[in-house]
């Protein structure tokens, strides 16, 4: 399940709805990413996607995760557009009978989203705007799975 949206979403409500659908799973791992930044340093984050391409890439990553781990189901919700500090950017949730599978697949999907998902991040602060690209650590995290 994938949703890319340009309006805020409620991670807790989404996670509850997800849990409702996979009660026989037992183990649900999730990750919430919030727009980080000390007040004053970052005032806004803008995320851009390539409609069609972005969705296809994430759907493929979800399929890879399902092949690799015994998942009941997986959910990715990702914001695009303009966000303020503290707002959720991303929710990933994975459900399995097995705790390890849930944790690892959630971790895997986050690594995909950080380095390979087709988004561009524009950070706007008092000193102007800059484009944020993945850090070396993000690429290293991602290489754990290959």
């Amino acid at each position, binding site marked *: 399940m994938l949703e890319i949206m340009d309006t805020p979403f409620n991670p807790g409500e989404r996670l509850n709805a997800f849990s409702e659908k996979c009660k026989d799973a037992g183990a649900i791992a999730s990750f919430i990413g919030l727009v980080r930044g000390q007040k004053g340093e970052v005032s806004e984050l803008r995320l851009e996607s390539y409609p069609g391409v972005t969705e296809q890439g994430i759907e493929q990553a979800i399929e890879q995760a399902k092949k690799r781990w015994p998942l009941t189901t997986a959910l990715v919700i990702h914001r695009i557009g303009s966000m303020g500090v503290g707002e959720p*950017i991303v929710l990933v949730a994975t459900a399995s009978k097995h705790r390890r599978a849930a944790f690892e697949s959630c971790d895997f999907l986050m690594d995909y989203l950080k380095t390979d998902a087709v988004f561009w991040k524009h950070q706007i602060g008092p000193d102007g705007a800059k484009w944020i690209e993945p850090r070396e650590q993000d690429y290293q995290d991602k290489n754990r799975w290959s």
Partner: protein
Amino acid sequence: MLKIYYFGRLSDRAGRREESLALPVGVNSVSTLKNWLDTKHGLGGALQDKSVKTMINQSLIHKDIVLQGDEEIGFLPPVGGG
């Protein structure tokens, strides 16, 4: 018509996020199109940067390709969300 998209920092550089244009005279491939756009928008070689990927009709290309003139072309600097 070609439909061209500039993403991320390339849109700042090109001063636009997209444009439509007919295949210019002398342009028949991705590589010649990149050179032509570089001159037209004064991109300083930004499209030639190794980190920039090219998509034709939403598929990544890994070598130069002949253009028909009706393609959707995306220029993608390094991606990352989350």
